[in-house]
């Protein structure tokens, strides 16, 4: 590999970090107070559930699928947490475990029947939403006490959301990018034929990854509930597109098993910050979604540019 191509690859890997700084630096200039413990806590408060939802999406994108139901699923988990988990903790735990198993079963089904994941998860998104409304017809409920305590835990020196995000990124990176089981899972995204040829079960692999996605979805829902202290069936609908955007922003690609856990976490934080960015500029929050979209387009264009120059070299 030539050094030029190598620096190109580096640049591609660094792009998520660069885009995070591009959002972070203007915020710091506009509002230096955000750099404080309290400021960063406030700014990144909602990052943790988004990071979890992003990793759930990442597990699915690893095997070239797309999960259009993660938002409603996170809402459903929050509703279970605000109702069943408070009144009947055992039943609540069982329901959450059932959610994870359902995800794994969906993964197995998609591989066995070769159905497009988009169709299955789009259908499921209505199922999750429906269940959430059955559980909690109107916004309300309370978060279990322990959950509130975990989410409002004050870490020393550095604000809790930052520590959480770093921890999640490290664990996820180790599991998916470094461990041999994780590498095999990614292999199934890169060349499923070869993986099957060498005697691995693609069904088991997809079921595992979907199960992991379900687990992260549950964690996302619970952490969101811990922050908001009450739930709503429409609480996290926008997480579906937000999580896809974060994975792509973090260097992931829709096909080919190319994903980056650290990049995706950075992407999720960038998108969280982008929402606050316009608030500091005294621009209406109506523009937030558009801003997030604009960031995505700019970063993706940059990446395509880098790839093209790389391709010309070869």
């Amino acid at each position, binding site marked *: *590999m030539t050094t030029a191509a190598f620096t190109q690859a580096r640049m591609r890997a660094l792009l998520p970090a660069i885009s995070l700084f591009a959002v972070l630096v203007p915020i710091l200039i506009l509002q230096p107070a955000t750099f404080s413990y309290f400021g960063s806590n406030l700014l990144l408060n909602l990052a943790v559930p988004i990071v979890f939802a992003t990793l759930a999406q990442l597990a699915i994108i690893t095997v070239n699928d797309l999960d259009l139901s993660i938002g409603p699923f996170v809402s459903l988990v929050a509703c279970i947490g605000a109702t069943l988990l408070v009144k009947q903790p055992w039943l609540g735990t069982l329901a959450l475990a059932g959610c994870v198993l359902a995800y794994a079963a969906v993964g197995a089904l998609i591989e066995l029947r070769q159905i497009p994941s988009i169709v299955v998860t789009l259908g499921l998104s209505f199922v999750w939403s429906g269940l959430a409304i059955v559980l909690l017809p109107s916004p309300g409920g309370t978060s279990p006490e322990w959950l509130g305590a975990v989410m409002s835990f004050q870490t020393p020196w550095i604000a809790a959301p930052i520590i959480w995000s770093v921890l999640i990124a490290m664990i996820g990176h180790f599991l998916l990018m470094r461990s*041999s089981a994780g590498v095999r899972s990614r*292999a199934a995204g890169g060349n499923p034929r*070869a993986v099957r040829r060498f005697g691995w079960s693609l069904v088991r692999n997809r079921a595992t990854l979907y199960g992991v996605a379900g687990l992260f979805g549950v964690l996302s829902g619970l952490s969101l509930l811990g922050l908001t202290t009450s739930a709503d069936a429409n609480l996290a609908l926008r997480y579906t597109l937000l999580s896809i955007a974060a994975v792509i922003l973090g260097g992931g690609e829709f096909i*080919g098993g190319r994903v980056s856990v650290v990049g995706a976490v950075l992407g999720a934080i960038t998108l969280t910050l982008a929402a606050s960015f316009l608030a500091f500029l005294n621009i209406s929050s109506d523009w937030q979604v558009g801003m997030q979209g604009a960031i995505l387009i700019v970063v993706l264009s940059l990446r395509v540019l880098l790839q093209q120059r790389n391709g010309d070299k070869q």
Partner: protein
Amino acid sequence: MNKYNKTGDNKFPPLIQSPPLIRFSGIGKTFGNVKALSAVDFSFSPGECIGIAGHNGAGKSTLMAVLAGVFPPSEGVIETDGQACPHYDANTARLAGIRCVFQELSLCPNLTIAENLCVVHPRLSGRGWRKRARILIRTRLDEIFPGNTLTGNELVSDLTLTQRQMVEIARGFTETDVPVRLMILDEPTSSLDAHTAEQLLAYVRQATARGVTCLLVTHMLGEIERVSDRVMVMRDGCLVRVLPRENLTRDSIILAMGQHVEVSNAPREVRARMAREKGAGYEWALGPRKSVKVDAVPGEVVGFGGLAGQGQTDALLAIYDAAQRDARTRVAFVAGDRGRDGIFPVWSIAQNLDLRWLGKGGMSGSRNSETRRSRAGFLIDFAAARALVEAWRVKIGIRGASVNASILSLSGGNQQKVLFARALASNADLILMDDPTRGVDVGTKRDIYQLVRDEAAKGRTFIWYTTENDELTYCDRTFVFRSGSVTRVLHSDECTEEALLAASFEEHAA
């Protein structure tokens, strides 16, 4: 100089005494209704190098896939070390020490070279597996291809095709728990340059001397000739000859690969020459430097031969482009890859059939086209379309299905006939065919040959790329391709199996 180059220097491995590593008895494999392998009996002994030769579609790759445990055989018994294996799969093969370097490469492009090892070796896990994997692959790469500059940390997608093939080969030879005992190399040198191919062949001799059985499947007969102890020759899914080391030459391999050809050559030369004098022919200069010259006259059937993927399809597409730009030429294309390029799967047989005819105003294909042309507008003449479809249905002999049924209700062969009818029912004078009889049964093939000859007699020109050499006997002239250029032009009287093979294997200075 490499001392392993000449097999004459090596002692022969003891072929008879030791029990065979793998024994095949009566192995057969069918895909749907296509028989890819039938009744193959063979046994592989430790430490021998077996060359496997045969045409495209002779069943070489299928046999290797069965051996690697990718597909279970439809019939027959596989024995390893004298014991029958009823459930022979990829894991059985791996535990028996069988490895395969696949022709189309089985690396994951999104992983690094070292990470790709863990797909093959379940043992690579736990602490420090990445380091172990890197050392394993680096050692093998240096052993097989000394002087390579790979570190093991590069992403496979960043490698060149040659480097990928090197990695695939080196990965095949890595060992963790089970030692390699049988190595299948399926077209291993197709992307290697002369230098690295030389290194690989030397390593193959070295490995066989260590007792590893190597199977070399390749179209490069020179390589087989140099390193093999025995050569299996396959044809039509059967093992037809096993040539021993003695008197093993390229010519003897080619002779054994040859197929007896049903000669049904009418003297069509005369007609072609007549037409040429009228000066109504086609001429194309193709390729990046316009170096490939192809010409045809009306009523001629021109064949494109040679090994698969030597640039024939590109030449056809270039001709198609050129013909599209030229307003005088009316051209139609018959795709070979039906599923991908040919059929519209949700449409009916009729809709699939009359599509090309509709494209030209919905008029021109029928017999009285010239008189009705003036009426051609942008509305479909449904009565004419129905008549056309019915006429062609009878002509190509599709029975038992309504023309309004889905195209997918037909067998593959009949789908191909519909694609033929689509091209022939149009107003096209020039018909390009991209290996159209791929995976089609013999009966359908005969019908298609008949159609081609009948239509050529009416003055249509056919350009026919085929990977089956006996089809080229239906062509007036055959252009033999090798590495994107034409090596020979054979007239129908000189188009014998031997001449074709010789031209197909005509090697350029590598």
